[in-house]
């Protein structure tokens, strides 16, 4: 087990290192930040001073070495635009994104699982077919367009919900959250729904496929034969068994939701990390872009690692084959 764990951690570290190199080089390739940052009326000496202060006068390999060195000490540099540590600025925005992702996740489970199970139990019914058709829609609608449409319908035409922003927030454990106030909740609903629709479709399809597989299993037939009510069969025997794959997938998807809520946050002016990333790209704030991507990599690699390790606990086959290999 320890050998397996060590190997997985090693692999994760390699992945992070490769990503760090790619991210740094990629960001380096897109334009010169000084051309965007500095006032066009500035003189050459001021431009030169700014370049030197940002460390952009050094050759690429030196800049990279400095980046790696400070990154190893947990410092991803100062933002060019804000003049403060990039990680701090991102972490300020983290609670907003996390809240959005968690609410979206809850929505996709609470709505997706029942619909999926229903479609799985009655695959040929009109209801079941419409659920499946709906899920295709959820998969294929572009997130940006879908968000604008939600705003148009619910905010502009009906006027039920606000078009964007975060609304009233309250402090909980030093973090500002929206879901505890009525105003905040209203602001949260549309962006969360927009983010959830895709995942919801995923959950529906997963739940349906698994339900169809599970209902043919002997233990379900046996439960039926025993004379248990349909309700009990579905709620206990079917639901329990389909939840394992659903939970696994959602665990992984949570990472991507946190990291890539960008489109939703932009459309709904939600003050999370994704919106920060877009703004930073426009301003070529290199340290902030790099720090954001590195944090994202870290989140996803960590989640994958945890899931893999958990799996090896659940399924000894993985553990054994790895050790042999």
């Amino acid at each position, binding site marked *: 087990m320890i050998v397996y764990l060590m190997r997985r951690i090693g692999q994760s570290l390699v992945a992070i290192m490769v990503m760090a190199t790619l991210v740094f080089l990629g960001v380096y390739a*897109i*334009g*010169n*930040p000084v*051309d*965007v*940052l*500095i*006032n*066009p*009326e*500035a*003189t*050459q*000496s*001021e*431009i030169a001073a*700014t370049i030197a*202060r940002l460390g952009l006068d050094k050759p690429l390999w030196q800049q990279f070495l400095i980046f790696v060195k400070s990154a190893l000490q947990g410092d991803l540099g*100062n933002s*060019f*635009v*804000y*003049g*403060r540590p990039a990680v701090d*600025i991102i972490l*300020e*925005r983290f609670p*907003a994104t996390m809240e959005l992702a968690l609410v979206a996740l809850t929505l996709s489970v609470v709505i997706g699982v029942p619909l999926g199970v229903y479609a799985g139990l009655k695959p040929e019914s009109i209801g079941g077919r419409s659920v499946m058709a709906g899920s295709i829609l959820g998969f294929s609608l572009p997130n940006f367009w879908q968000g*604008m449409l939600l*705003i*148009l319908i619910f*905010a*502009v035409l*009906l*006027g*039920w*919900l*606000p*078009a*964007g*922003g*975060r609304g009233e927030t309250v402090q909980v454990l030093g973090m*500002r959250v929206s879901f505890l106030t*009525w105003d905040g909740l*209203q602001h949260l609903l549309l962006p969360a729904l927009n983010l959830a629709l895709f995942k919801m479709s995923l959950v529906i399809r997963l739940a349906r496929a698994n339900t169809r597989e599970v209902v043919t299993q002997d233990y379900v037939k046996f439960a039926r034969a025993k004379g248990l009510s349909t309700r009990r069969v579905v709620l206990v025997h079917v639901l329990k068994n389909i939840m394992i794959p659903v939970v696994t997938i959602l665990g992984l998807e949570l990472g991507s939701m946190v990291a890539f809520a960008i489109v939703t946050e*932009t*459309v*709904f*002016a939600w*003050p*999370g990390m994704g*919106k*920060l990333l*877009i*703004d930073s790209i*426009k*301003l*070529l704030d290199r340290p902030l872009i790099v720090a954001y991507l590195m944090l994202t990599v870290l989140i996803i690699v960590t989640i994958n690692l945890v899931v893999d390790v958990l799996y090896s606990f659940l399924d000894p086959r993985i553990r054994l084959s790895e050790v042999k290999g």
Partner: protein
Amino acid sequence: MRKVSTAMAAALVSATMLTPATAQDGELTIGLKSEATSMDPQFHNLSTNTQVLQNVFQALVEQDATQSPMPQLAESWEAIDDTTWRFKLREGVTFHDGGAFTARDVIYSVCRIPMVENSPSSFSIYTQQISDMRAEDPHTLIIETDGANPLLPVESATWAILSAEAMGAEEELTYGPDGSCEGMGEVPQSGAFNDPAIAVGTGPYVLDSFTRGSEMVITRYADYWGDAPDWERVVMRPISSTGPRVAALLAGDVDMIEQPPIQDIPRIEEAGFKIVDSQSNRVIYLAMDQDGEAPGLGGTDGKNPLTDAKVRQAISLAINREAIVERIMGGYATPAAELLPPPMFGTSGRAVDPYDPERAKELLAEAGYPDGFQITLGTPNDRYVNDEQVAQAVAQMLARIGIQTTVDASTASQFFSRRNKQEFPIYMAGWGAASGEMSSPLKSLVATHNPDAGLGVTNAGRYSNEELDSLLGEAMKTIDDEKRSELLQKAEGVALDEWGILPLHYEQTVWALAPGLDYTPRVDQYTLAYAVTKADGEGDAE
């Protein structure tokens, strides 16, 4: 539960009224297209920061809606000689913490500008010429400059005045150039400005809270020296994408937005909102590589046709500026003949080049290119209003006289880097004159490239004319406004007479407001919350 149901009922009620919601009594919410990078008014020389922080921090001089310098914290000013200025300061002005405003605060504020750490773009370009500052009495300030600087009063509009007391200055405060002042004490850096005790200005509003990415809230300052603004509380929200910004206005989330996309304006008006617009100080222009060899050219046997004034004139005559303004800019622009819209300072009011493709073809033939040539036109695609479409239209118009033009559009950050590396033989860009006078575009766009002197910094076409340089140099030393204006007009004439740069149009800046609000549109494109007023009655605003 009852609370929830009443709120639901309220939501339903508001849903039934389809007319746009007017601003709540005493509170104004504005949707801005970008957000300030700091609450420190001296941190970042960027219009986004300036326009919101001017509600809180003021300067000696302010620029009115047409960018003429007007007294703000200074009641009057005069040039004693070419290098010495005397400012009479306003009496009875108090900072938000109650402290009185004196010359010491001005000296402190100017001293701090070069001492701001990590500034992405420092305001020190407007203070580096100051060699000495001293107070004759608490409300009279003498400023000496290193060489004559007629722009000093205008530039003083960029010095945000902070309270020396609140910032922790020592009793003895003496000026020294480039951050060598003495008695500054521990200078608070930008991060400290989130503390209301530090962020005190003399403006009509007090900074209440700033939540990055979300909103900035300011409240009315009761003891403000000037006219009290109409709003008790103002909330400014950054909504960077245009679609959501318009939606926020239509949904009644905000009472006012800046720069709605031109194509959405009819819809906004239909929904009962008000549109105000004004010519901006931004000119959109074409610059051409006149530096000998140029990249991205074809069919010219390695020569650069753009060094020939006839070819440049042909290009200008080939462009139908009226059509661009009407069809692509939706009428929200004006065809341009100069680098700054008249009647701003230093403009001559010359006529716009006519649309004459026949004459253009003749000129091309005279220059030795009867069959035209191939060229690449560089443009940003997210910086100016409908920039890429304008460039496409220009390309088609040039194709009609035989110049086969390929448009190379890229995002602003990419475009400016490539432009500065002179990758385009011809490019489209814009220039807004921060000082509101002709010297600004002349210095940056057409003066001979000499970055060490801060001249021709954005002159990537490398246009150069000695006569222009000497006229401009002369103007920059002339304190007398009338004489300076004349010199600037002559200098501009030199560049335009040989088509050294081709102005296309002046952008118009648009704001959309809820009915019941009024805003005097500004040429500098600033959205100033304190200048938004309640309309005096129905229907009298045009």
